[in-house]
């Protein structure tokens, strides 16, 4: 079957490889001209450019593989990834040598290391575990990472006293590895759900909820009369502008808020359409809940605390009654899929406007007189959120259009379930050590091993969630869907710890 499929597409296979090859040759030739002009081959910018070119080639081929399933792409794609990884390693080494410390001190350096880890993990997953399609997901992320790096301030900045510690590197390396492991387990759990025949429309709901959440978070910065508040950036000192200790100055970019609101409506549309198409189920569920809410609470008590078998079977019966209820119309789902496509275009538009408005121009602030500039470096989280939203929706379209191919290419459900568990078995000890190293460092720098700083607290919550996963799996034998949901929840908490806490909950971890 697989073989037959490959033989159907030999022509397109060669075409894509030739096209990618030509494109890269062109880019490298342009870069060569540039190098000849500047006379400095091994500068970090050039190394990063080479990294970008190779990753872009690899990403295109991996995507081609994901879409067409032509096996021959993989060979060239991993070759490109190897080349990119080599250039990336050189860039990391160059940075390390120039800065005198491992590259973890700023967002730029973290991204540099993150992209490196991502590419290395892709190759490991592909060669060691045979998860060939993983590059389709990871390489675009790596490309976005390298592009983001071009936008962020890249000069080597000296370390402030609190960061001058070996423990910084231990702590951050462990965090990187642990979070990369969590990300991998998330991707594997998603693949498991695909292989476990989860309905495509459920993924529609998941990606829509994710994107709606992103735009809701961005709109927290909505300012009256359609502006969007972003942090002001002092270009001279390459730093955020502070009004007082720990309080950043926000400037309002006019009209950007309206655009974000529009895109919010666009990304919410598929979700609404889905809910309309499933209104009978929802109505039924709501009616049941209102009629039997007291009972339901009692159920919860009986079910969770007293472990009453009877109530549990009742809950199962309820699920059985609701689940097969017919949908009102599947045609609405088709409309929702089209709405996803339109929302992607609008999201790209929003990202483009955001990039243009942030990079150029001075904006007024509500808290101070005068005009202030801003920069992408001041809003890394909005930027990653916008890119992440587009990426999630693109992945949904990939699933929608190429589900059968994906199912053929991915390992079977049992294997994925097992690998997910194994990845968490690696990530969990790393998470533990990361927290321990952080505590030891905090004990040396801040005077106490535990300060209940938001980042610390959320790291502990992450740890508890994964500990819960392991207990449920080992003592209760949770496998399959439930375990996959748990792995996804774990990664959601990781993402919140990494981005959400920095963005929403200020604390001692101000520099990361």
């Amino acid at each position, binding site marked *: 079957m697989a073989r037959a499929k490959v033989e159907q597409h030999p022509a397109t296979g060669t075409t894509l490889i030739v096209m990618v090859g030509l494109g890269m040759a062109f880019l490298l030739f342009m870069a060569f001209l540039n190098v000849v002009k500047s006379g400095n081959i091994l500068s970090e910018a050039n190394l990063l450019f080479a990294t970008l070119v190779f990753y872009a080639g690899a990403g295109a081929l991996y995507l081609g593989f994901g879409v067409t399933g032509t096996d021959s792409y993989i060979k060239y794609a991993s070759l490109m990834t190897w080349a990119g990884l080599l250039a990336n390693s050189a860039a990391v080494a160059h940075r390390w040598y120039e800065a005198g410390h491992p590259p973890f001190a700023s967002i730029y350096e973290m991204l540099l290391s993150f992209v490196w880890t991502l590419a290395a993990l892709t190759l490991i997953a592909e060669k060691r575990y045979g998860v060939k399609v993983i590059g389709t997901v990871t390489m675009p992320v790596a490309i976005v990472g390298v592009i983001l790096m071009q936008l962020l301030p890249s000069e080597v900045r000296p370390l402030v006293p609190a960061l001058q510690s070996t423990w910084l590197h231990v702590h951050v390396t462990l965090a990187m590895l642990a979070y990369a492991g969590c990300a991998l387990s998330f991707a594997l759990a998603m693949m498991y759900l695909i292989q476990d025949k989860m309905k495509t429309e459920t993924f529609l709901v998941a990606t829509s909820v994710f994107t709606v959440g992103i735009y809701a978070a961005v709109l927290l910065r909505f300012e009256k009369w359609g502006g969007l508040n972003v942090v002001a950036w002092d270009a001279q000192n390459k730093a955020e502008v502070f009004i007082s200790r720990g309080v950043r100055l926000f400037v309002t970019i006019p009209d950007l808020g309206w655009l974000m609101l529009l895109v919010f409506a666009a990304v919410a549309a598929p979700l609404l359409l889905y809910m309309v198409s499933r209104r009978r189920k929802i109505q039924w569920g709501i009616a049941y809940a209102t009629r039997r809410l007291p009972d339901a609470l009692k159920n919860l008590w009986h079910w969770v605390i007293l472990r009453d078998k009877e109530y549990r079977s009742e809950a199962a019966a309820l699920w059985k009654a609701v689940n097969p209820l017919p949908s009102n119309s599947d045609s609405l789902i088709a409309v929702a899929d089209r709405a996803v496509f339109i929302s992607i275009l609008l999201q790209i538009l929003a990202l483009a406007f955001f990039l243009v408005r942030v990079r150029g121009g001075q904006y007024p602030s509500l808290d101070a007189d005068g005009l202030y500039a801003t920069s992408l470096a001041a809003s890394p989280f909005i930027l990653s959120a916008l890119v992440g939203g587009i990426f999630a929706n693109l992945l949904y379209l990939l699933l929608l259009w190429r589900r059968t191919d994906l199912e053929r290419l991915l390992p079977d459900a049992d294997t994925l379930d097992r690998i997910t568990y194994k990845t968490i078995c690696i990530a969990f000890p790393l998470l533990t050590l990361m927290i321990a190293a952080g*505590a030891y460092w905090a004990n040396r720098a801040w005077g106490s091993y535990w300060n209940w700083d938001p980042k610390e607290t959320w790291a502990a919550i992450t740890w508890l969630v994964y500990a819960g996963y392991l207990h449920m799996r080992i003592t209760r034998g949770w496998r399959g869907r439930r375990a996959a949901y748990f792995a996804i929840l774990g990664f959601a908490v990781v993402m919140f710890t990494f981005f959400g806490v920095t963005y929403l909950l200020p604390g001692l971890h101000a520099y990361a």
Partner: protein
Amino acid sequence: MALSLRSALRKIWQTLSSIKTGVVLIILVVIFSAAGTVILQRPMTDADDMERAYSPAMLRFLDATGLTDVFHTRWFVALLILVSFSIIAASVQRFPNAWRFFARPYKSPDESFRKVLPTQAQIAVPGNPLFDNDEEQGLNAAERAFKHLGLKTERIVRTNSFSLFSERSRISEMAVYIVHASLLLIFLGFIVDSLYGWRGFLMLSPGTASNQIEMKNGSLRTIPFSIRCDGTGEETYADGTPKKYWSKLAVVDAGREISRKEIVVNDPLVYQGLRFYQASYGRTGKLDQLILDATPTNNVASTPQEISLAMNQTVALDPDTSVQLVDFIPDFVVQDGQVYARSKDIVNPAVHMIVTSKKVNSSVSVNVWLPPMPGIDENASSPYTFDPKDLKTGVYTGLQVSHEPGQFAVWAGVVLMAIGLTFVFYVVHMRFWVVPVRDAQGGTVLWVGGTANRNRDAFELKFKTLVEQIQKELKPEFVATAQGQAATIAGR
């Protein structure tokens, strides 16, 4: 009554040890800690900011429930203690079984066990005309196969059976208890610290010593020794960002200097369980030394005399004249003929000195201000004019002091947890049994079975190699040569 009490206790014990209780408790911990990161917390946030952020009624509610200082409220600590009890109860309840399993390994599998074991194989032992004891020969071959794979074996001889047992890393069965114990150790240290630990602040200027620590609530705590500051300073990078803060400290106990250390951020001084951290550094806003050039007013051509003044210090300028520094204002402003201090930052300093000249029977004092303050100063009638050269202001080092007696339990717990987790995830307890049995035709068959407590895929592979190796060892030519060697060794 006694019975009902007992049954109630049993009920409590069962509830406490159930995994669901554990999960519910942990969910509560998660919810409240998350609340603690979202709701502004008391000691870190200023009272003003709190009032700005919440309505008075809301704030009263949050304060009453302790939600403005979640992590230090009694109920949160109680919740953590409850989680510890749940871990203890769950471990205690499950431990005896696990211990039995650990202490008395199951070495000789009976028939029902052999029937249900998922990983097993049967290998026919080829009859060998030279030796009549097929069972012995089969087990010997199996022993060689185990040895080939680096596993130790044990012959189990029971009254009615005769078999082979091999295992590796039995400790792995205990690993989860190591992890739970380590968690309890960490909790213990944490609870000890929240009960007996304290944190405070000590501000020292160079040359001063103190044994009074200022606690968070403003009270003072006396420690049994004092800390002397011999110097402090900062270094900056070329672009002005701070590079290093340092303080030279000495421990003085009962008047004797015990030790010295230069501390920096990330490298504290430790003495008698107290830790002193470099936390802040700054200028006190007080004057340390003022350096001036003084020139007699009536003899401007004479060489100026350089003098140095500290606060309230009097220096003689000539046998009849002396000057005293009486006031230093770091940031002055003049209003209604009065000089006021606007802030403590040295941005606009002024000094007030009194120049006293002895006359025949009396002395005349003149108020001199630098810079001159029209209407206030009497600089014109001073016998000397002063030209300020340098202003040395006082610096201070802010030391964070902490006493956390429980932290050693925490670190021990962390190390133990690392060991425990290594065993939990990466050390596999493997067991193998080989039992010679008779098949339906009456020939000897080796029943080989095995199990592993985790990582079954890798184990299956290992089992397969083992079975193949045994089959290889059982081939007649192998058996013959091996037996021959054994015979020669025995014969020698």
